[in-house]
């Protein structure tokens, strides 16, 4: 399938999202679509897949002008869109998820489970994955859920598959597998649109790249004819300094000391200490237990045994309130589910953990809160029209900054950040790194869980590697290499 989108315009109310975008897709190519959050990538793809209708412009498919009534019609014409927020029914099994809305049944509506299983087996074989069909999808890892989505797309005989940040939550092994599958698909003539912020991947797998900025196409190039720096520059519209800011660590006293933290079946005998002004990176494969350790440390989940000492005092953390009281702050990996109240304004979200300081007597001093929110918005460069904007309307990077703003206000001693830059564009990432530097300069200790090795190595002063619920090793910044971390993370040495 060959697609030509010409001079596309789209506005939502006053908000002009696309202003004259050109995009083309050849049969059997992998086409990277890049741009900062809010550049209009998702809107463009939503138009292509029939969810939205363009205000102006034409879409030609195999040289015939086409417009889809709705996403169903687009799907029938061979378009599939695998979104960042996966379409998974967590209480249903893998098999049920694969066939949702497309169940095979006899004329009386009785499901043909055997046939569905056979069909699913076939698809899993092409994808080279194995997942028990009876497993509840909610119990699968994010990586596995992603594979379910891809399998679903393949079952619709899609000729164009759009993937939005497909690797954000995948382990390296799963990414490799995904790339193999993608290559295989292109050989069969399937075209792929690959939306990602991960430059390495784009250069590894894509044929062409289109960069968007502020609702316009900046450029389309063959991957072979461009390079990392050029792409980044086009994306942000200015020269970008290094990906990671310069970092000078001055670790102080030990602020958090964890001994023998254990939760059966998830992690065992976890020891580590964090000093003031230090960034400790926590690396490991997905499902190794990194997030679980942090959740237990913060009191979201209960530990079976272990000892937590903060500034030399033994503390008991049984619920998040305890953790906050003892000076911990937690930026979770899923900001929409656990980080933000999406119906609240930016101001109200920032205010939430800080209510005590705005409402010492219980009455919220709105003026103080507005001032504080506006100061945070300025300091963290949150792009929002005002502090009263509903947070759900902001881009991912800006939402993440608000989550951080929430916690900075509580003046934490230890800030736990789980995947702090997931799904965020290069420019915003750098801003978040700079913020981390600023925080550690003020003596805050940061624990950063991340699946992105460059980030771990670029920002951490010390790296803990978790493997199957245990700390497999500790590396200093100077001695850390990707290879060493991966070796520890996979159980080697």
């Amino acid at each position: 399938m060959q697609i030509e989108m010409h001079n596309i315009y789209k506005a939502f109310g006053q908000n002009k999202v696309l202003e004259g975008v050109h995009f083309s897709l050849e049969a059997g190519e992998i086409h990277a679509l890049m741009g900062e959050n809010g550049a209009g990538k998702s809107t463009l793809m939503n138009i292509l897949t029939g969810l939205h209708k363009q205000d102006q412009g034409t879409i030609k498919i195999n040289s015939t002008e086409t417009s889809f009534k709705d996403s169903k019609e687009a799907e029938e014409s061979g378009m599939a869109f695998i979104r960042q927020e996966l379409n998974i029914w967590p209480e249903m099994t893998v098999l049920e998820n694969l066939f949702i809305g497309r169940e095979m049944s006899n004329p009386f509506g009785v499901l043909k489970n055997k046939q569905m299983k056979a069909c699913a087996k076939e698809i899993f074989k092409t994808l080279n994955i194995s997942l028990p069909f009876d497993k509840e999808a909610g119990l699968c890892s994010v990586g596995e859920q992603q594979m379910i989505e891809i399998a679903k797309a393949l079952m619709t005989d899609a000729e164009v598959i759009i993937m939005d940040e497909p690797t954000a939550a995948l382990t390296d092994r799963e990414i490799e597998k995904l790339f193999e599958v993608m290559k295989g698909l292109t050989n069969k003539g399937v075209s792929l649109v690959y939306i990602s912020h991960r430059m390495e991947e784009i250069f590894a797998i894509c044929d062409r790249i289109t960069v968007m900025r502020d609702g316009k196409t900046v450029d389309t190039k063959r991957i072979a004819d461009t390079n990392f720096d050029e792409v980044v520059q086009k994306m942000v519209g200015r020269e970008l300094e290094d990906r990671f800011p310069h970092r000078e660590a001055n670790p102080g006293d030990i602020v958090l000391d964890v001994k023998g933290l254990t939760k059966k079946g998830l992690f065992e005998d976890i020891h580590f200490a964090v000093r003031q002004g230090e960034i400790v990176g926590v690396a490991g494969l997905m499902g190794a237990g990194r997030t679980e350790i942090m959740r237990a440390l913060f009191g979201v989940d209960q530990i079976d045994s272990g000892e937590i000492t903060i500034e030399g005092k033994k503390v008991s953390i049984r619920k998040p309130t305890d953790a906050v009281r003892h000076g911990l702050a937690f930026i979770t990996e899923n900001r929409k589910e656990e980080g933000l109240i999406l119906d609240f304004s930016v101001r109200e979200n920032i205010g939430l953990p800080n209510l005590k300081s705005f409402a010492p007597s219980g009455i919220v001093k709105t003026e103080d809160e507005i001032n504080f929110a506006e100061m945070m918005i300025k300091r963290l460069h949150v792009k929002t029209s005002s502090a009263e904007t509903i947070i759900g309307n902001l881009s991912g990077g800006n939402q993440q900054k608000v989550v951080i703003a929430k916690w900075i206000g509580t003046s934490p001693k230890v800030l736990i950040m789980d995947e702090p830059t997931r799904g965020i564009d290069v420019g915003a990432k750098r801003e978040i790194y700079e913020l981390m530097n600023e925080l550690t300069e003020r003596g805050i200790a940061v624990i950063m869980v991340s699946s992105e090795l460059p980030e771990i190595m670029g920002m951490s002063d010390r790296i803990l590697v978790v493997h199957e619920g245990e700390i497999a090793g500790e590396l200093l910044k100077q001695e850390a290499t990707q290879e060493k971390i991966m070796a520890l993370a996979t159980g080697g040495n």
Partner: protein
Amino acid sequence: MKLEATGKSGIWQKFGPLLALVLLFIVITVLNPSFMEPNNILNLLRQTSINALIAFGMTFIILTGGIDLSVGSILALSSALMAGMMVSGLDPILAILVGILLGAIMGVINGILVSKGKMAPFIVTLATMTIFRGLTLVYTDGKPITGIGDSEMFQMLGRGYFLGLPVPAVVMVIAFFILWFLLHKTSFGRKTYAIGGNERASRISGIKVDRVKVAIYGLAGTMAAIAGAILTSRLNSAQPTAGQSYEMDAIAAVVLGGTSLSGGKGRLFGTLVGVLIIGTLNNGMNLLGVSSFYQQVVKGAVILIAVLLDRKKS
């Protein structure tokens, strides 16, 4: 993306119910001008006050995504206990205060079962609704409690006037302003919305979700007991079957006022308007001589239409 703020609620959520109320006023007045007579309006306010008090408490609960079916039974039980205390010679004012405190405790029990017991509010309050009603029947032996004395202060509560306004209506207005302030100006109110909007994120933000919930259910119990005191005074007795199905009128008022049953969205002013819509319907249809059987049909239909409009316009 620079999307403009849409606000907590659309135009319909804000002004739709109010518009419907005004329309209702006009229609009924055209059909029967005596509706607008001051006496009838005061009467209307007195009639709505009990539902209003219960619905105000219910608003907080529904904003957290919960529900309380037991408010009618709390009203009955606290009313019976108040009357019992008065019959046994306790000072009426003290009896009322103790009765309200007991209502608060019943609400707190609901709250503890919901938050600490991690049970669905619907189930918990369905059970306590039955339990509290049963206790009322046990305590009253199924018979009304009468002979609760002639304290003027107590009689004022349900039947008196203050500056020309019925006392129950005055209580309603005062309660509205206090609770409005609590919901929209205090950290407690903010936490109420936060829990309804995203309970997990609220917990991780360090909000004592359980404690807030217990307080909210306690508040609902308190409001039901205050309504109970007014009803007891008005009837000059405690009825074992008092307050039956009052929870439904309260929920209907909250929903009519544009508060979302899934929590996180809604306003107390909306509930006030919702209460007045239901009260106006009742009062107006009585004036127009509509059979009470049809009145129920109309009330149900109005709720459906309101929610339908809410869906379409938002």
